[in-house]
């Protein structure tokens, strides 16, 4: 039943995104601009990491794409709550976990699709990285999306108005992006900044993904990255499902 229901919800929202192909492509535009106008600036800079500047930049951009996209996913459910769609589904016997999973798996598909486009563009611009590393990177993007989109939906069901939701999400996303070293490695900065960034979970994902892009699949970074990604996903999906079960208070 869970599988049936998840597939059903997934299909509904996948068709929704296909109706707005424009938004789908527009989503890759921002990271693509970074790639075009920011990437070349880094080519000759000493980044203190192994590998080319592209192997440092691309993982960060992919996670940034997932971070922003997924955190704002909740906007959709605010619209749907207003239309009564969420309650209409919640009075049917449909699995509450499926109501969440169908949506976040749709989001993960969209971001992995966008990530593939971005990596293809990066390859053209000069990125060279092992295929296995690139695939591991997509897995990280998918887990990050599932986890953040779950939290975003949960938050959106709680606050209910875009006026409250927008500022809250911005307050979370900007510092997380700056503090996790998505743009430039944190090891370049002063020690206090490096220490501080270890309190931001995304830091571990970026480090792991950069290791994957340079072929270090068994590093300590990779271990921490996997643990953080899986832990975050389990926690967020649990929280999200709880909200779909009890929402309305």
């Amino acid at each position: 039943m869970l599988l049936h229901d998840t597939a059903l919800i997934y299909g509904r929202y996948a068709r929704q995104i296909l109706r707005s192909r424009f938004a789908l492509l527009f989503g890759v535009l921002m990271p693509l601009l970074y790639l075009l106008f920011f990437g070349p600036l880094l080519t000759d800079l000493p980044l203190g990491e192994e590998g080319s500047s592209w192997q440092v930049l691309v993982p960060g951009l992919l996670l940034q794409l997932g971070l922003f996209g997924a955190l704002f996913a909740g906007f959709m459910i605010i619209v749907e709550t207003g239309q009564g769609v969420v309650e209409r589904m919640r009075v049917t016997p449909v699995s509450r976990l499926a109501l969440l999973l169908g949506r976040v798996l749709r989001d993960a598909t969209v971001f992995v699709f966008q990530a593939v486009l971005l990596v293809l563009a990066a390859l053209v611009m000069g990125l060279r990285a092992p295929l296995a590393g690139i695939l591991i990177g997509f897995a990280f993007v998918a887990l990050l999306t599932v986890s953040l989109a779950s939290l975003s939906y949960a938050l959106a069901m709680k606050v209910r108005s875009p006026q409250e939701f927008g500022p809250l999400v911005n307050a979370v996303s900007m510092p997380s992006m700056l503090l996790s070293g998505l743009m430039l490695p944190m090891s370049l900065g002063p020690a206090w900044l490096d220490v501080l960034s270890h309190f931001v979970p995304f830091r571990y994902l970026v480090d792991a993904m950069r290791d994957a892009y340079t072929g270090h699949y068994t590093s300590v970074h990779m271990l921490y990255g996997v643990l953080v990604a899986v832990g975050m996903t389990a926690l967020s999906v649990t929280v999200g499902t709880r909200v779909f079960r009890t929402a309305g208070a």
Partner: protein
Amino acid sequence: MAIISTAGLARTFQTKHGSVEAVRGIDLTVRQGEILGFLGPNGAGKTTTLRMLTTLLKPTGGAATVAGCDLVRDPAGVRRACGYVAQSGGVDGQIGVREELVTQGRLYRLTKARAQQRAEELAAELDLTGLLDRRTAALSGGQRRRLDIAMALTHRPQVLFLDEPTTGLDPGSRADLWALVRRLRDEHGTTVFLTTHYLDEADALSDRLVIVDRGVVAAEGTPTALKLKYGGSVDATLQDTFLAITGRSAAPADTAPVAV
């Protein structure tokens, strides 16, 4: 036989500005096949009561059964027995009528073929057949309401909850909707639990009225009995009766069409 019965059903919301006692204790029973008008001024707790009875919201006090299933212990049983149309409706404007109906059938675990067949049946029954391939945003108010009701009837529920089903409809569509509600009851024996603040509607459509005010039942009975008891005579208007019960009118005068 009582198909719905509640005892002290209550719900308190915790908000930033303190707690709100939306429903303070509702006791009522509804017989099978009855059309019950749940009447009360804005903020009386009608929607909150409906959301509890349809398992959308956990009660903070009291108990209730719907079709023999306890709200808290057997929410799945309650969901099988009831259909619910929220005041806002529940369809996505960008999606087609057929797709919404089929998806709804699948949410009730019908097979794909059966869900498609059920969508056709419901469209025929609710006069939506010519509209199946339209986007729901392209429907008129009355057509939208019929679609919302079709969605709620997918699994042939024993009880249909309608929250202010005619608010915002033109007089012709309101009359159609009344006919539809009567037909559902007459042909399928469906129990209909509807909220409204249109007094004429409550008067014309309901077998029995339950009037709520500030989260409790203020009065109940047939429209005639209520008029006699609170309005002073069977010829009293329901408007005066309502005023006598709650000390307030049911709705701002401009939104309440009075003539039947």
